[in-house]
């Protein structure tokens, strides 16, 4: 290796600077959250008397238990259903290659680049007409639909590469299409299904616009949607706002630390395939 010493140090300094750029904002809201409620502290100043009670206060006013339950409910309603129906569709398009597969694939791929704000207006009126506006289903149902382009595309990419010998052997044994799906191909697709599940859970938890437009009651929203409402109420009380933000971030950060490898891999694969 002929990496000169000065170059090595320049590189290290750059990496440290980038890490500081990423981390300092978190540290800043943490120290701010410890200042007395209602004050306007400086960016990184450690308080003389850390107010740990701010977290308790934010926990109460943000109604954290309700928010956690609401977000968990939404994730549990969106992700399993999306996984099942997108796996089935990916199986039919990628492996059964039913007549019309090419058209179906094109139809789903078409939805990949659609920006959210483009379709939110009719969804609002649609949900008012359906009577689900301001319920959790107002978030759940459109999210399932919105995930379909990516999810079907993702699962199809798996099934299209499965060797046909597996399918034929099972057919010879008299397996029906359902047997083939349920007992042979779903177990083989565990890895892509798991990655897709991780991706959709993170996306759902962080969903904002759809919650903002379709659900007025913050306790019926996703975490991100509730955080938006919290900011609206406490924008002037910086320490409390920072404490609330940290509380709302904790579940995400814990999950990230535990599953960082899977999450990073899934997010990268997701973008490469998308």
């Amino acid at each position, binding site marked *: 290796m002929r990496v000169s010493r000065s170059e090595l140090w320049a590189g290290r300094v750059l990496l440290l600077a980038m890490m500081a750029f990423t981390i300092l904002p978190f540290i800043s809201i943490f120290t701010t959250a410890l200042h007395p409620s209602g004050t306007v502290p400086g*960016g990184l100043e450690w308080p003389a008397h850390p107010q740990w009670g701010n977290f308790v206060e934010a926990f109460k006013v943000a109604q954290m238990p309700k928010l956690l339950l609401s977000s968990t409910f939404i994730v549990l309603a969106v992700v399993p259903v999306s996984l099942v*129906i997108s796996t089935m569709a990916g199986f039919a398009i990628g492996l059964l290659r039913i*007549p019309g597969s090419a058209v179906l694939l094109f139809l789903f791929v078409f939805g990949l680049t*659609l920006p959210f704000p483009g379709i939110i207006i009719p969804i609002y009126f649609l949900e008012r007409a359906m009577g689900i506006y301001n319920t959790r289903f107002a978030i759940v149902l459109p999210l399932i639909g919105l995930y379909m382009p990516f999810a079907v595309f993702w699962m199809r990419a798996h099934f299209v590469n499965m060797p046909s010998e597996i399918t034929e052997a099972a057919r010879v044994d008299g397996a029906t299409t359902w047997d083939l799906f349920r007992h042979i191909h779903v177990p083989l697709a565990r890895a892509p299904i798991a990655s897709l599940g991780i991706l959709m859970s993170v996306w759902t938890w*962080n969903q904002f616009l759809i919650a903002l437009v379709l659900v007025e009651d913050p306790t019926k929203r996703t975490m991100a949607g509730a955080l938006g409402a919290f900011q609206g109420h406490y924008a002037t009380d910086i320490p409390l706002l920072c404490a609330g933000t940290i509380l709302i971030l904790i579940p995400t950060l814990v999950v990230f630390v535990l599953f960082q490898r899977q999450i990073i891999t899934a997010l990268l694969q997701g973008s490469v395939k998308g």
Partner: protein
Amino acid sequence: MVTSEDHPVALATSRRTRLQRVRRETLSGWLFVLPALIMYAVFVLAPLLLTILYSFYRWDGIGPMKWVGLKNYATVFEVPDLLGTIFNAFRLVLWFSFVPVGLGLVVSSVIHRMAAGRFGAIARTVVFLPQVIPLVAAGIIWGWLLALPGLINQILKALGLGAFTRAWLGDFDWALPAVGLIGVWVLLGFCTVLLSTGMTKIDKSLYEAARIDGASWLREFIGITIPLLKYEVGVCLTVTVTAALAAFDIVYVATAGGPGNSTAVPGIQVYILAFTQRAVGLASALAVMLMILVVAVILPIQRLTRESAK
């Protein structure tokens, strides 16, 4: 390839039952697609068509709809504040896309050349962190950092640049770059990790040969890394350009489009027009233009990316 027709068992079945089987399979195959297709059709395709339909009407969301043809589109082009959102979106691309991709290339190549071990792995994970938190949280955190008493101004003061301090997000000239900086923070890690992964796939002997010749980091970077990472760069551009053009969460939380209209992007303007000003038709016209814009910008990038993948 072995098809079922070649198999003795399949040959033994009569033609008619095979035909029936094919028909039954087609039917059951479509049943497999149906749930996904219905959800997609009801909550994406139908709203898409309705957005286009609304864009030809004047409608307050409650009363009768009035057909106005292309007038809403003409309005978008005539009103500077509306057309301005599209220019703002392109200015955001500069920040959300070019800066993270450029900086990501530099950072990941530094990791690759000088910190392949544990330090590099930690650096990658750390810079990736903002990618998993809600964009709303990123907006709130930076809203505070960029405020008058916030960290950014404190750092400037500590560096003796006190003259430059300002309320960044409330400044007509600086609000958009400040919002852009939030985008850099969120997207840099994603680009770095993706490009880093791409770099590990490049043949090591290329770098070794270059190092034996005593090539500097810069020559390695320009001569080997960039040309061989076209595909990954394309993916980064697709993701970040879409994030910029269709931005909503960060802008809504950090500035809500202000001050004035200096950070208003199409997503924000669509929301304001449709849900606070009740100009549903006009909002829909802008939404349609946003969708066309995204496709028009992303498709060429995708095409280039796919080509370089071959």
